[in-house]
C-alpha cells in the first residue's frame, strides 16, 4: 500500500471507530440514566416493593376483655390452658418423634393424623404447629421432666373463654366462635397472613357471637399486636424483625346479677319460659334468662357435631331467646294499660261501675265474650276490675275505645318496638292496627278485635323484655329508664317520661294501690304468692290462651296436649311502696298466671333485694 492510501485507510478507521465507541458511550449513558431513574427518582417505590417482598407481618391475637356482673363478680373469664407446640422443620424424623412422645403425652388417632397432614406444609416455612391441645397437669409434669429429650417441642399457654355459669347466662352473654381472619380490625395485614396469626386462644381467632359477646365485640376484643418476620423468596421465615404488643380488650361491667339469675334458672326449672328483671334506679337489666339453655363453654371451645345437631334439632329450641324474641299474648297483664287508656280518655273513671254477668255481648253482632269466672264478679269498678281481673269490665271498656288511639297508646308504653338499648336480636313483637289487618288478612278491623285487645288476647303480642319495660314504667309512675345490660359509669342515661295530662298523680297512686291489691289483698287473683316473701309487691298476672274457647269444659280437652296449654304470665314490681325492681316472667304452657309464674318472679325479686 502506498502512503496516501494508508493515510486514507487510517482516517477511515478513526472515524468509524469513533462512531462505534461513541455509540458504546451513549449506551453506557443510557444505562446510567436508567439506573438513575430506578435508584434516585423511583427510590421510594422500589424501596417499598423490596420491603413488601421481605417483610411478612402476622397478627398477634389480643385477649378479650372479661365480663362482670353488677357486684364485680366475674361472668366470663380467660382461663389459661396449656398446649404442646412443635417446630416441625427441626424434627428430622416425624414418626420416631411421635413414637418417643407418645408415652409422655396421650395422643388420639385424630391428633396424629391431623399433625401428620399439616407438618410438611409448616415444616417448609418453619412455622410452629400444635400437637396436642389442653394438656392435663399430669402430662405437663411428665413433659417437663423429659423436656431435654424434646428440643423441638415446648409447652405454651393458650386461653379458653370460660364462664362458671355456662347454662344460666347462655343467651344474654353469647359465646365466641372461630373466625378465619379479623381483617376488618387490622387491614394493614393481608388476609392470607391471618392463618399464621400468633394465637392467644386455644380455639384460634375468635369473634363474639350473639348476646353481649357480639354486641360489645369491638369493645371486648382489644387490639391485635403484630410481629413482622423477614422471609425469603420461598416464603420461609428467616428472623423476627419487630413486635407490637397486643392490647387486651376492655372489661365489661354489666348490670346482670348472678344470684338473681341462679334463682330464675332454679325456679323456672326445666320448663320453657323467660325471666326479665330491671333495676328501676338505672334501667339496668339484672336478669335476662331464657329456658331451656345450652352450654356456652362448649360452644366457645369446641362442641362435637352431634352435640350441636342435637341442640339445633331440639324441639324445645334452646337457641331461641324467649326473653327477647318470644312473642306472647300479654293476656291480663295488659289490663293496667287498658285502664290507663280508659282513664285518660274519660271513657271511665275510678268510680265507674259495671254489672258483670260473667260475659260481654258485642251489641253489633251479639257475639259473646266470656269472663274467666262463670257467673261474673257482680258490681265491678276499676279497682276491683284489677283485683279480680274482670274480663267483662275491660271488654266493655275496650269496646268504647278508638282502635287507632289505643294502638298509639300501647306503642307509647313500649309495645311493638325494641325497648332495650343493647340487647342482641331483640324482637319488636307487634301491636295490631286496622291497616295491618287489612293488608295482611284482607279483612276489615271489627269491634270484636278491639274487645279482645282489652284483655290482651287476639293479635297483640309482646316479648318478656317489653313486659318488664312496661312493668318498670308502671312501677316508676311513668318516669323510667330505658333498659340496658351495660351502663357505662359516668354516662348517666336520661330518664324517659310517659305522661298524659289526663292521667295525674292520684291516678298513679290508685293504680299502684290496685296492683298491690292483686297480690296483697284477700281478693287478688295472685294472692297465692302473698306469703312467699316479707315485703310487699304489686303486679298483674295473666293467662294467655293459645286456643279461643267458650267454656272451661272445652279447655279440659285441650289441656291433654301440653303444647296447647295456656301460658302463664306475671309482671311484678317491689318492694312497695318504693319499688326498686320490676320483673316479668313467662312460663310456656304453665297455665294459671299468678300461681305458676308468680313464685318465680318473687324468688328473683327476693335475690335482688337481699343483696
Amino acid at each position: 500500500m502506498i502512503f496516501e492510501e494508508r493515510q486514507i485507510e487510517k482516517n477511515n478507521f478513526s472515524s468509524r471507530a469513533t462512531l462505534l465507541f461513541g455509540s458504546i458511550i451513549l449506551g453506557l449513558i443510557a444505562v446510567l440514566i436508567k439506573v438513575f431513574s430506578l435508584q434516585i427518582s423511583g427510590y421510594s417505590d422500589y424501596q417499598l416493593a423490596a420491603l413488601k417482598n421481605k417483610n411478612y407481618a402476622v397478627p398477634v391475637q389480643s385477649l378479650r376483655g372479661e365480663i362482670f356482673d353488677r357486684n364485680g363478680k366475674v361472668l366470663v373469664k380467660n382461663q389459661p390452658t396449656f398446649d404442646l407446640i412443635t417446630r416441625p422443620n427441626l424434627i428430622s424424623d416425624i414418626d420416631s418423634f411421635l413414637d418417643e412422645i407418645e408415652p409422655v403425652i396421650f395422643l388420639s388417632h385424630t391428633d396424629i393424623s391431623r399433625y401428620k397432614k399439616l407438618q410438611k406444609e409448616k415444616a417448609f416455612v418453619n412455622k410452629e404447629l400444635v400437637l396436642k391441645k389442653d394438656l392435663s397437669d399430669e402430662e405437663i409434669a411428665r413433659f417437663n421432666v423429659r423436656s431435654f429429650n424434646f428440643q423441638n417441642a415446648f409447652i405454651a399457654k393458650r386461653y379458653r373463654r370460660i364462664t362458671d355459669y355456662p347454662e344460666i347466662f347462655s343467651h344474654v352473654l353469647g359465646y365466641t366462635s372461630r373466625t378465619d381472619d379479623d381483617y376488618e380490625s387490622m387491614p394493614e395485614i393481608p388476609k392470607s397472613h391471618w392463618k399464621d396469626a400468633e394465637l392467644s386462644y386455644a380455639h384460634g381467632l375468635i369473634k363474639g357471637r350473639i348476646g353481649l359477646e357480639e354486641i360489645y365485640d369491638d369493645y371486648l376484643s382489644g387490639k391485635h399486636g403484630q410481629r413482622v418476620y423477614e422471609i425469603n423468596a420461598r416464603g420461609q421465615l428467616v428472623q423476627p424483625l419487630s413486635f407490637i404488643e397486643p392490647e387486651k380488650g376492655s372489661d365489661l361491667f354489666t348490670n346482670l346479677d348472678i344470684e338473681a339469675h341462679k334463682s330464675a334458672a332454679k325456679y323456672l326449672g326445666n320448663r320453657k319460659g323467660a325471666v326479665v328483671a330491671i333495676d328501676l334506679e338505672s334501667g339496668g337489666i339484672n336478669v335476662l334468662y331464657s329456658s331451656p339453655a345450652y352450654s356456652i363453654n362448649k360452644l366457645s371451645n369446641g362442641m362435637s357435631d352431634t352435640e350441636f345437631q342435637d341442640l339445633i334439632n331440639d324441639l324445645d329450641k334452646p337457641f331461641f331467646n324467649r326473653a327477647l324474641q318470644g312473642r306472647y299474648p300479654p293476656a291480663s297483664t295488659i289490663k293496667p294499660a287498658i285502664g290507663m287508656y280508659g282513664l285518660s280518655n274519660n271513657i271511665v273513671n275510678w268510680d265507674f261501675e259495671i254489672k258483670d254477668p260473667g260475659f260481654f255481648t258485642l251489641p253489633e253482632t251479639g257475639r259473646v265474650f266470656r269472663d274467666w269466672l262463670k257467673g261474673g264478679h257482680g258490681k265491678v269498678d276499676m279497682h276491683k276490675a284489677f283485683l279480680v281481673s274482670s274480663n267483662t269490665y275491660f271488654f266493655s271498656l275496650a269496646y268504647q275505645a278508638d282502635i287507632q288511639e289505643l294502638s298509639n297508646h300501647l306503642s307509647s308504653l313500649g309495645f311493638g318496638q325494641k325497648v332495650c338499648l343493647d340487647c342482641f336480636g331483640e324482637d319488636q313483637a307487634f301491636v295490631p292496627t286496622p291497616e295491618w289487618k287489612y293488608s295482611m288478612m284482607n279483612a276489615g278491623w271489627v269491634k270484636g278485635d278491639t274487645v279482645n285487645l282489652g284483655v290482651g288476647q287476639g293479635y297483640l303480642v309482646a316479648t318478656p323484655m317489653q313486659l318488664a319495660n312496661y312493668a318498670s314504667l308502671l312501677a316508676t309512675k311513668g318516669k323510667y329508664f330505658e333498659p340496658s345490660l351495660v351502663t357505662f359509669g359516668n354516662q348517666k342515661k336520661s330518664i324517659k317520661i310517659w305522661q298524659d295530662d289526663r292521667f295525674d298523680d292520684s291516678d298513679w297512686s290508685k293504680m299502684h294501690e290496685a296492683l298491690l291489691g292483686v297480690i296483697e289483698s284477700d281478693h287478688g287473683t295472685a294472692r297465692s304468692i302473698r306469703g312467699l316473701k316479707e315485703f310487699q309487691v304489686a303486679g298483674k298476672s295473666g293467662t294467655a290462651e293459645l286456643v279461643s274457647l267458650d267454656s272451661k269444659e272445652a279447655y279440659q280437652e285441650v289441656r291433654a296436649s301440653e303444647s296447647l296449654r295456656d301460658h302463664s304470665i306475671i309482671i311484678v314490681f317491689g318492694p312497695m311502696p318504693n319499688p326498686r325492681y320490676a320483673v316479668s316472667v313467662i312460663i310456656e304452657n304453665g297455665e294459671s298466671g299468678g300461681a305458676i309464674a308468680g313464685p318465680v318472679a318473687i324468688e328473683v325479686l327476693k335475690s335482688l333485694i337481699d343483696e
Partner: protein
Amino acid sequence: MNKLFQKIYFDPYIFFSIFLLSMLGLFFLFSASNADTSIVSKQFFYVFVGFIIMILASQPDPDIFRRMSGLFLIFSLLLLSITYLFGPEINGAQRWVRIGPLSFQSSELLKLAVPVFLANFLFDKKLPIQRKEIIISLIIICCCFFIVFRQPDLGTALIIACSGLFVLFLSGLSWSFMGGSFILLIISSPFIWNILLQPFQRQRIATFFNPESDPFGASWNIIQSKVAIGSGGLLGKGFGQGSQTQLNFLPETETDFIFSVIGEEFGFLGVLLLLSIYLFLLLRCFYLALSARDRFCRLVIGGLSLTFAANLIINLCMVVGLLPVVGMPLPFISKGGSSLVSLFLAFGIIVSMGTHKKFLPQ
C-alpha cells in the same frame, strides 16, 4: 524490576483497570453467593490464571497472531464441534467441553477467533473492500453464528456475529451495503421470530415488552432486578445487606444479575464507580486502536474491545430492563471461568497489538 517492565509488553492502564474490576468482582461475588467461599476461591483461581494468560498473550508479535489466525479459527470450530457431539447437557444446552477437572465453554474462543481471522483476511485489502470479500466474511460470520445459535446460546451467538461485523465495519464496509442489509433484516424479521427463535426466547422477548403481564412467571427476574437496583438508592444497603440478594428474591445473582446486586448493596455511587472503570478501560482501548502500528492491529483492537463493550452493554441493558433477558455475563465480575479466561486472553491480544511498535513503514 524496571528492566523487566521494559522488556515485557505491558500496558499499565489496561492492567490496573482490569485488576480493579476483577478484585471488585471477587468482592461482589462474595455477597452475591451468600458468602460462599468455595465459589469465590474458585473464581480467584480463574482470575489468577487469567492474569498469567493475559501477560503471556501480550508478548508475541502481532504478526504471529496474524499468521496463526486461521489455525486459531479452525481449532475453535473443532472444539465447538466436539462439544456439540460429546458435551454434557446443562440447562438444555450443550456448551461445555471438559478438560480434566475443568470445563470450558468452547464458544468463548470463537469470540476471539472470528475477529482476529477477519482482521487478517481484510487488513491488506484495497479500500473500499470488494463484494467478494464481503461475502466471504459474511459467510464465515454466519457459519459461526449458526453453530453457536444451535447450541442454543443466542447471547454468545449474537456477540460472535457482532465481533465479526465490527471488524467488517471498521475495515471499510460501504454504507450502501449496510443500508441494504438493514432493510433485508427488517423484511426477514418475521421469519427469524417464527422459525429461528426457541419458544423460551420468544417468551422472554414478549415479557420484555409487557413485564406486568406475568409478575410471577417469566418476568419475575426482571421485576425483581429492578426492585433490587431501585431499592439501593444513592448509597446502597451495604455489603451483604441487600434483602433482594440475600433472601433470594433476585435470581442468578452470581452470573447474569450480579449488576443488580451491586446496585442494591452499593447504590448509585457504586454503579457510577463501576461504570467509570469500564469507560476508562474502553477509552484506553480506543486510544490503543488509533495509535496501533498497522491496519491489522487496529482492526483486532477495535474488534475485540468493541465485542467486549457490546457484551457489557447488553448485560447492563438487560438487568435494568432496557433489553429482553438474554444469558450474558457482566465481564470480569460474573462468576464463570470460561468467559473470564477468554476475556483475559482478548485483552492480552489487545495489549500485544497496542504495545508492539514497528517504526519502519511496510
